């Protein structure tokens, strides 16, 4: 130790613009991946829910993708998609699939069978039942999946910094800091990345509370018996 402080606050103070820009970039890259990953996962999950036989192959493939080392995947894509946003997003999306599909399918599976039967018996069409009965009741587990996927995606974005400073978000600080032996940058990148993940996670928690008012009614003084999937906590 040569007496230099761990964090050079002067550098931080002088680079607030840069830090803000990286944070926003980080968030953008992560959100694109989460949104695209969710759309793909949702479609595949609906397919797996309706045709049970599709479930094993879908999660099998998603599971294999999940095992590929992230460093290798980013590097392997460069010859194909060049140094583009696509190269950053493809691995992020692929890594989100397994978590999201598992949770979305579990969410639909958790809808009580008597509720489904009642919906059929009342005369819901299949589509109507899906959107108006099953999807709302699957929300707690779907959001639980989104929380997991978004936290892991936000962490993975830092690795995309290998593709250059256009795609790494806060990861650019980390790689720069490592290369120049400047710990302040590493800390700023890591701490803000963690902070971002926490903020996004909290946002999803609040979103779920907004979307599922009935699960809070459970705690009301008149509530006597636990009933339905709203009692399920996040996975």
């Amino acid at each position: 130790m040569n007496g230099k402080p761990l964090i050079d606050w002067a550098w931080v103070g002088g680079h607030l613009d840069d830090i803000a820009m990286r944070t926003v970039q980080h968030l953008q890259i992560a959100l694109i991946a989460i949104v695209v990953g969710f759309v793909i996962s949702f479609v595949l999950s609906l397919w797996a829910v309706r045709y049970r036989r599709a479930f094993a192959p879908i999660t099998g493939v998603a599971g294999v993708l999940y095992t590929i080392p992230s460093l290798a995947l980013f590097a392997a894509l460069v010859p194909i998609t060049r140094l583009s946003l696509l190269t950053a997003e493809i691995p992020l999306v692929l890594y989100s699939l397994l978590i999201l599909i598992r949770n979305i399918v579990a969410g639909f599976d958790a809808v009580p069978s008597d509720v489904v039967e009642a919906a059929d018996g009342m005369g819901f069409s299949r589509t109507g039942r899906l959107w108006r009965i099953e999807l709302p009741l699957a929300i707690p587990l779907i959001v639980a999946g989104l929380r997991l996927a978004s936290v892991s995606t936000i962490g993975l974005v830092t690795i995309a910094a290998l593709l250059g400073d256009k795609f790494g978000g806060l990861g650019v600080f980390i790689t720069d800091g490592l290369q120049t032996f400047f710990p302040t940058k590493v800390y700023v990148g890591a701490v803000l990345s963690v902070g971002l993940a926490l903020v996004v996670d909290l946002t999803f928690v609040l979103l779920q509370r907004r979307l599922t008012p009935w699960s809070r009614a459970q705690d009301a003084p008149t509530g006597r018996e636990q009933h339905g999937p709203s009692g399920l906590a996040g996975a």
Partner: protein
Amino acid sequence: MPDSQLMPDSQPVPDSQPTVPDRRAATVEFEHVTKVYGAESTSNPGAVNDLSLRVPAGKICVLVGPSGCGKTTSLKLVNRLVEPSAGRILIDDVDIATSDPTQLRRGIGYVIQSTGLFPHQTVGLNVAVVPRLLGWSAARQRERADELLALVGLDPVRYRDRYPSQLSGGERQRVGVARALAADPPLMLMDEPFGAVDPIVRERLQNEFLRLQEELAKTILFVTHDIDEAIKLGDLVAIMATGGQLAQFGPPADILANPASAFVARFVGADRGLKRLSLVRVRDLPLVDAVMARPGDPVAEQRSRARGESSGYLLLVDDDRRPIGWVDLRDGDPRAAGGATLTIEMAHPMSPLLEPEMTAKDALSQLLDADVQMGIVVDRNGRVSGLITVDTIAGLTRADTGDGPSR
């Protein structure tokens, strides 16, 4: 939220059009209906074997039998949650195979044991499910939901904004029934609707159900495994045996009086004679005329009247023919000795007063409790209509022939 943006079930039905058919009750007919499940079926629902029966409009038909007898399957065949392997089902003489399943179901009330209430919707929205599917206006949906909650005994103001998880078991069942009634369907299917609540609540729900049915006069197919519930609720009872065979079909009194087979006799129980008593009301029974006297009547004259009676008792009544008590004018009763005229003091405490609406079962139990042979039947105003004896009631349990009195 996709919930609100996609409404594929709502057809823009003009509100002025009657979406509710004006017929209030439908006939249902099973014609040689068979449902076979393949070996691959894991849940092992009960099969149905050549079921034929006809339920007239406005009647409650209870399907009862041991588990696996196909009673629930039979119910689900009617709203096409299950499709028959052979045979057909007619509602108002129309083969249901020709109608669109979702449209068919919107016209049939459906209540299941676990209620199947939608946990994410308030009680008000739950009740208005079918009206919403039928495209009623929001205002009309709300109005209808309130009306039905009141009908099933739940204060709309207190209950409409609650979630199902905030209700007790009995309240949920009521909401389930209200929901099934929402579009005023001519036919209701009820699968053990009172099976999940405790016996006291069940009893109350059953009584309310009967009261409601008196008003609504729907055709109801009702499934239970409880023979007592079947006898209590059914205008017609269909007893099903394992394997989906119809063992006997008819009014409960007939089944209790003449079980068609050893299986039915065993299923309705060794106490079927006693069970039959709960089908008979006191008003249905032959009454014995009471020998009545009033305070102030001369004892000597009445004594000779009483001698003609096997019991030797006179029933002392007031000027409005309301009973006061029994007078024993046989020799040796110290109360009656001495006086020249009948007085209130001579009267012995009365046996229980029975009302015409009472079931024979309750009447018998009152007589046995009071350890008397004879009960006094009084009308609405408390006036004596006649007497009933333990023997008369007990005789009912033995009558194994003839058509039992209907309710």
